[in-house]
């Protein structure tokens, strides 16, 4: 299996993860979407030096990993490409912000280090929340939820088609990479001299296939508007879940659990 086939496999794994049956999967997609957005907003709202306040925000994704029976390792594995980028966001803070704002024993910790860790954790938590949303909600159901929240049909169709197009392009890339390596044994990657024609071919081939897929959709009555399989109605349980989660986020935001716990041990 080459890298592209693995990528394709991972993409299909996400669909399979989302199709499982757990209490979290059973919730209405809109409830999950609203709570994820609320979680991300609350997480991002923490002050850059408020590390102790931010850390307890990890409780929600940890809880969801348990409820949805999702492997944490698979989350980090699937996010392995984007995680370093998120981690790199605050990398230069220690160089610009050198003021010591706290001491751990006799070691002074600068504001730059604290804000760097805070930024990294914010990115990590937001990615985990997004991953959990995708791992517990099918893309079609998510788009249906967006439509029910009066998102423009054009945007939801675009989202769904882009998601599908990524699969088509990856499939073509997998075939082309395999064909290349069969005729270039022992070569690591694709030689730079072949990149131009390789990318051009990839674009043309994936566009051809996308065109064929689109024709197939049009022939089955598609007119720029997806009729998603019906989500069940948003019920009291979904509302309760969303309300409890948002209340929990607000509690974590305005009451520092770390300080409360610390207060039990330090006078």
């Amino acid at each position, binding site marked *: 299996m080459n890298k592209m086939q693995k990528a394709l496999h991972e993409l*299909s794994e996400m*669909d399979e993860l989302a199709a499982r049956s757990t209490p979290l999967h059973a919730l209405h997609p809109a409830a999950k979407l609203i709570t994820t957005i609320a979680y991300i907003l609350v997480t991002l709202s923490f002050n850059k030096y408020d590390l102790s306040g931010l850390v307890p925000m990890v409780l929600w994704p940890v809880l969801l990993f348990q409820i949805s029976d999702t492997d944490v390792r698979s989350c980090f594995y699937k996010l392995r490409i984007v995680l370093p980028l998120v981690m790199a966001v605050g990398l230069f803070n220690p160089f610009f912000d050198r003021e010591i704002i706290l001491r751990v024993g006799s070691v002074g910790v600068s504001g730059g280090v604290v804000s760097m860790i805070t930024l990294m954790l914010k990115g990590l938590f937001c990615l985990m929340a997004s991953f959990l949303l995708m791992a517990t909600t099918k893309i079609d159901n998510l788009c249906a939820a967006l439509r029910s929240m009066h998102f423009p049909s054009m945007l939801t169709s675009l989202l769904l088609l882009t998601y599908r197009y990524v699969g088509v392009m990856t499939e073509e890339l997998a075939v082309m990479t395999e064909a290349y390596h069969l005729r270039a044994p022992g070569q690591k990657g694709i030689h730079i001299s072949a990149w131009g024609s390789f990318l051009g071919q990839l674009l043309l081939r994936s566009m051809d296939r996308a065109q064929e897929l689109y024709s197939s*959709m049009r*022939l*089955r*009555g598609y007119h720029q508007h997806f*009729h998603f*399989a*019906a989500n069940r109605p948003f019920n009291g349980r979904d509302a309760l879940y969303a309300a409890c989660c948002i209340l929990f986020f607000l509690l974590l935001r305005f009451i520092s659990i770390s300080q409360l716990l610390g207060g039990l041990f330090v006078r």
Partner: protein
Amino acid sequence: MIEFQNVSFAYEKDRYVIRDLSFRIEKGESVGLIGANGAGKSTVMKLILGLLQGEGKILVDGTEVRKETLGVIRRKLGFVLQNSDNQMFMPTVYEDMIFAPLNYMMSHEEADRRVDEVLARLHLEDLKYRYNHKISGGEKRMAAIATILAMEPDAILMDEPTSALDPYNRRIVINTIRELSQTKLITSHDLDMILDTCGRVILLSGGRIAADGPAEKILKDRALLEANRMELPLSLMGRM
């Protein structure tokens, strides 16, 4: 049901792949469209479906294929693509099957019922919630036919329905095609399959009709077939 009146089509200026083509397919007829590569078989299909626009007149159930009538025309036609991967674009077989009925404003309950009926008819109940990328080539081809049957079209157009299938799956597809009551237009190089499923054959050559008549008669004509870069069906070779 389907009528071509002096239809011509060129992908590039003055390089016609379909030339002055005229034929008529009656309701309920099963017609095989055969010919060598580049003879214009797929172009004929695309012209009927309105994916290409040529010169002349094409009628489907009395309605001319024009931009304004495409909605009505396509509601009546089901097209099974050669590459099932290009047809099955949703994650599961069920989602693919329900796609067309929902687009045609059918209620979810009715669409669900129709999906179940078609799956039961083709004995594909086990495939309903299977992932498209995880089913075999034969299953995928059958599922592709099922997605089209869920539309309840008046006519079914099939592009190489038995290509890349092993003998067992090929036989299943052939038996399924034989049981379909709709008008059928099938393009294929698999002449044995055409012989099994079609009562009439249209042989295309260079965008023109080289022969049109009963399948048995045309597919037994070795000279005609060889003149058009084809061979006798394997099942007839021993008899000649």
